């Protein structure tokens, strides 16, 4: 309460005091251009890179032997691959929500976190996109899922949600990439102008696409950015809706339910914001940008998490209720199996991680103290991963005919690929922090009081 930065609302400001256009630009661009590469970065990147090598090894072995190296079987035809796919795709959602929806809603506080949130989206979707390909029995034929002209005159089967997935995920990745890149252009120009190194000047120069900051550029930029935001907004809802169809269309008890689309979207944003916080909290600490990513951002994100977490909790309750209310023996058993079956500990862990523990966010201290928030966010990420595990594996392992019940045990290759994608994500984030401005310079400048003066002039 005695924090001097607090304004009359009682909440932290979105940007620390004492900054000017120049100091903001200096501070952010120096991370990329002038500061020496820190040992911490080198260690972090090194470890992530090693994990990427593990991933490549695991993928190589997978292609050589087949998906049988994983724990998948009959009846559990989908295991870690699909669990991870849904988890990563969900994580991506927060970035799009922050950059597109909050832009349209004129939530200007987003300006400090949207850049790396978008990068996070991109990398998360890239990780997610690996899995549908890797989990195929014959991955070299993945392109058969695309409607391409061919001599057999044969198309994909459009009734299958997996085909919708292909469209949803590829659209999502494309839009996210374009949106992110367009948003980067003014800052790339700044870096081009400030770079001392010839190579950096050329590379940033090419990426900046001739940006000179003229009024016409700004006008076109604003229009394009707004249009893309408009395009990206429905994707926040549609992508995970389509992903949820992968399950909802199926007749498996535990999958076949209409609540999945909203519940999946809420879950996606829930885990996405958790990932934003897991990234933002250490970044602001290590790069000393607490003034740009302030407690206000943390608190806002925490509140989004709390809200979406409650929607997810509602989803669980309704799922259980409908299992019971359906009066169907298979649906009933699905609930019973979650509560008493061999995977019950995981279901209770899920309830604890996703519903019980995040309730601490009602308390302000947990929303504003970085360490606590960091831990809660990790817990939510774990919980959301467990949720997908419960949905995919626990529903499949005991379905209609008792004779075909089975168990799923992940193998070391399952883990290698899962952890490998985390490494890949981390490595990409490290590179991003090092070579691109992780906070949008020009957008952050619009948050300064001076910007208001410029506007009013």
């Amino acid at each position, binding site marked *: 309460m005695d924090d001097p930065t607090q304004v009359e609302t009682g909440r932290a400001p979105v940007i620390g005091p004492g900054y000017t256009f120049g100091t903001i630009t200096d501070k952010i661009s120096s991370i990329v251009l002038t500061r020496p590469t820190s040992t911490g970065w080198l260690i972090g990147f090194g470890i992530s890179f090693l994990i990427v090598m593990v991933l490549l090894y695991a993928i190589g072995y997978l292609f050589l*032997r*087949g*998906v*049988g*190296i994983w*724990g*998948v*079987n*009959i*009846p*559990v*035809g*989908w295991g870690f691959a699909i669990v991870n796919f849904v988890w990563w795709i969900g994580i991506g959602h927060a970035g799009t929500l922050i950059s597109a929806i909050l832009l349209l809603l004129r939530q200007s506080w987003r300006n400090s976190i949207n850049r790396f949130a978008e990068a996070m989206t991109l990398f998360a979707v890239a990780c997610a996109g690996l899995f549908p390909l890797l*989990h*195929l*029995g*014959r*991955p070299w*034929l*993945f392109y*058969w*899922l695309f409607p391409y002209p061919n001599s057999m005159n*044969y*198309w*994909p*089967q459009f*009734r*299958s*949600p*997996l*085909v919708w997935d*292909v469209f949803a995920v590829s659209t999502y990745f494309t839009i996210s990439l374009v949106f992110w890149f367009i948003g980067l252009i003014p800052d790339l120009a700044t870096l081009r102008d400030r770079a001392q190194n010839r190579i950096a000047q050329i590379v940033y120069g090419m990426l900046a696409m001739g940006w000179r900051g003229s009024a016409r550029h700004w006008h076109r930029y604003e229009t394009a950015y707004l249009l893309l935001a408009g395009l990206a907004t429905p994707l926040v809802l549609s992508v995970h809706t389509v992903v949820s169809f*992968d399950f909802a*269309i*199926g*007749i*498996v008890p535990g999958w076949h339910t209409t609540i999945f689309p909203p519940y999946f979207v809420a879950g996606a944003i829930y885990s996405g914001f958790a990932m934003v916080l897991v990234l933002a909290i250490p970044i602001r600490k290590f790069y000393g940008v607490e003034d740009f990513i302030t407690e206000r951002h943390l608190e806002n994100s925490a509140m989004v998490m709390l809200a979406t977490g409650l929607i997810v909790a509602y989803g669980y309750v309704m799922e259980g209720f409908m299992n019971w209310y359906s009066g169907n*023996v298979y649906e*009933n*058993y699905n609930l*019973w*199996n979650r509560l*008493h*079956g061999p995977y019950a500990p995981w279901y209770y862990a899920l309830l604890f991680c996703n519903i019980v523990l995040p309730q601490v966010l009602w308390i302000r201290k947990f929303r504003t103290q970085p360490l606590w928030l960091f831990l809660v966010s990790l817990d939510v990420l774990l919980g959301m991963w467990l949720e997908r595990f419960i949905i995919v594996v626990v529903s*499949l392992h*005991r*379905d*209609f*005919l*008792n*004779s*075909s*019940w*089975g*168990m799923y045990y992940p193998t070391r290759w399952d883990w290698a690929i899962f952890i490998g994608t985390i490494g890949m994500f981390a490595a990409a984030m490290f590179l991003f922090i090092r070579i691109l401005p992780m906070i949008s310079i020009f957008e952050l400048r619009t948050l300064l009081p001076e910007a208001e003066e410029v506007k009013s002039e």
Partner: protein
Amino acid sequence: MTVETQLATSVPQRSSNNKMEDNKPHREDVCPGKKHKLDLKTAHAQIAATKGPEYWRSLEELAGSSEFQEMMHREFPKGASEWLDAVSRRGFLKLMGASLALAGMTACTKQPLEPIVPYVRQPEEVIPGRPMFFATAFTLSGYASPILVESHLYRPTKIEGNEKHPASLGGTDIFAQASILGMYDPDRSQTIAHLGDVRTWGNFLEAIRGPLSAQKAVQGAGIRILTRTVSSPALADQLRSVLKLYLQAKWHVYEPVNRDNVLEGAKMAFGQPVETQYRLENADVIVSLDADFLYAGFPGSTRYIRDFAKRRNPDAGEMSRLYVIESTPTSTGAKADHRLSLPSVKVEAFARALGSVLGMNSGGDGVLDRDQAKYVAAIARELQSHRGSSAVIVGDHQSPSVHALAHAVNQALGNIGRTVVYTDPVDANPVNQTDSLKDLVADMRAGKVDMLFIMGGNPAYDAPADLNFADALKNTNIPMRVHLGLYQDETAELCHWHVNEAHYLESWGDTRAYDGTVSIVQPLIAPLYNGKSAYELTALLAGQAEATGHEIVQGYWQKQHPGADFDAFWRKSLHDGWLAGTTFTPKSVNLKSAAFPPSAVGDIKSIEINFRRDPSVYDGQFSNNGWLQELPKPMSKMTWDNPVLVGPAMAARMGLKTEDLVTLELNGKKVTAPIWIQAGHPDNSITVFLGYGRRRAGRAGTGTGFDMYPLRSSATPWFTTGVSISKAGGMYILASTQGYQTMDTGDGVTRPIVRTRSLEEYRKEPDFAQDDKPPAGLTLYPGYNYRSEPYAWGMAIDLNACVGCNNCILACQSENNIPVVGKEQCNKGRHMHWIRVDAYYQGDRDNPKAYFQPVPCMQCENAPCELVCPVGATTHSSEGLNDMVYNRCVGTRYCSNNCPYKVRRFNFLLFQDWETPQLKMMRNPDVTVRSRGVMEKCTYCIQRITQHRIDSEREDRKIQDGELQTACQQSCPANAIVFGNINDPNSQVSKLKANARNYGLLQDLNTRPRTTYLAEIRNPNPELEGQRSTAEHG
């Protein structure tokens, strides 16, 4: 042309009128040159370096080199025989690349190097692409299974029952069906060997000549011949003529799964050996005393299943009632209307008590408890009210007294000639085999044996432990020990000479079915490895070294049928698969006495151990057969292992869990093995299965499971008491293919999977199975009018008829080129069977009811799998089949997830063997061989449908009902599976589907399955039913 097709097609073959091409040895003698190291890599490199026509030449050259000979004699390529990793069971398939070189060398005849031209004139009868069927017979422990063998361009590919033969009627058994894999087994012995070195037949002839002529001087006093049970008239005749030639020579017979008790029982009752046959179609009440007569291995089981099933139809005639009093739970017990779980040692007391109630004064008091006594009383009442239409059947492992008692009971009930028939024995030399082997071992130890010929069989592995046969073979000084066998097994290892035996599909022979009918065994292919048959080896002993199997067998039957019409008779016999007029005629025998000495049972309070033949690998002779190893055992659905069966009550008392390792100790011998808690197993009793733990079986069988023979003694080969069990600590993973063996779920619900009622309830409410049928047209998508198509394929499976014999699984495996995946993959739930037989236990775990349900693809009209496939690899045909397009499949496995029946199977790894040439020859050329990453499933044998459609269209007619059978249907001895056109209201399948018992599995999901089930009706005795339920509630 690939190596193996060339080999196969150009082998000169007989059709029924051709004489078999002489198989004189072609090979030059092998000179034991210097031994250079040659490993696989080098061999491959040598082959790879050459191209085109030179290929053969390089093999020839390779063959000349002594290194190559050394490699051949090693049997496995270098490294393979050292590869003991359990995980490698699948990996061995990879290694078989080596067999390319091996098979090129050792198989069949040599090819000319000069260019040769294919048929100028097509041989009569051969239509490329169309199989031919040859009648022959498979023999197990002396009893023949009459079969038809499908042959594609003279490559046998599949075994089916011989419809015209009374012992088959089209059905077959698992061992016969799997024998085709046995013939192509790449681990079979491929050469003659002397002390492990490769030799030729000429070498062997030379080696044997001297000792044999020396024996002439002493009238063959040192010659001993050990065979398995011989029912072959020709071979028996040959052996007897050898004995005439060498008056002091002896012929011993031993078979680990023998019928000594049956023999002794018959002698006890009638004073002479007889064969007992049952006429179950006439039996209203059947009482089985530990007899597993509805499973392969029981003589006549194929026919008995048919006759039994016929009388189990609640809609036609009077349903029979089956009482099974048994120890080890069997599929026969599962079909019983009343099953009494009784330790084997008490079965005699039960039989005596039953005899006493029926007025035979046979004793048997004091051992049975009150409930068991009630069973005796109820069964006795039933038997008395069904005089002449009842049958008491005793299992082979029960004591001679029980057999004799059953003969007396059947006689007292007037069943003889009606439901029970006696004939001459099928066994050509009915002696007590245990005694026979004992005599042999005594002679061996006494140094009386100079030449020992072991023809077939593996006594070093499977002889009773107390005889110590292996030791007698190894440590007594027998100058010449000869082993004839399909494998270089444990016995071959201890013999001087090993002669590789020709498989029955490669050689001539004859054999008898359970009813005495003789079948001629016709070869379907020239011996792959120039093997010799027992006939040829015996001929050698009789001084006819040059006689071929064909000459011997035909010659024998010419003597029996000397008329001028012999050629016609012979051709007809070969064509039909049996010799007319050889069926035994019923024999009338008289009971000598009705007082039978009680058998020594030991202390019935101590723990009993039962030894049983394994339902899959029998006595161990099929250990290396991957199909059988992976065939889920009927009750436990276990694959690749033989755990110790323990009842639930006993396990709870001893604190044992499934997969715990225990040590069994009996007579100072110890065996450590895992346990499996088997519902329905009697308390204070355990069961172990023979046939596992082989040391030299081959890649599939070596080291698989646990050897129980060390616990088995000649005095008590089947059961005894006094075994002690102690926890050995540790666990052992067992691979059962069925996840959960009850329809009860943990939440207190019983799922309507197998629908069942008693006969009485069924009569009151015939359509009980129908209640959850959804109305037609309940779907958003526009329906397809299947009724306007000429054919709509459907299947009905009568659960009442199904006896869980597993035949359908093997028939499907053989027909559809289904791979074997190995234990590790089975344990992960990745077995590949397109049809499975689920076994469910209901009720009291100590004596549950059990039900079987074969589950092929349901071919749903609203198939959930089709909707979700992103590439359209599974689609619906206009005839209602759920087709699978392997080429199009990318392997998302979504279809399997969405299949409520879980009948889809996925190639998680490269399960199929693409390399072993022998196995390539075995494949059905009409069915795609699937690779990794592809989903597969039952297609109602679409290749057969297509074949019949082509035929019928050419003749401008429709496919007739019954002419087209799926593989599972064809092999089913019970006729439980009926397939056909449901658009034809008169087809058999339409009629079954119109039955009130017909229901669709999970039909409330509105999948509209084309495969439906006929609910199971049991026919319990009301008197006992009441008692059972009070016992349950009490």
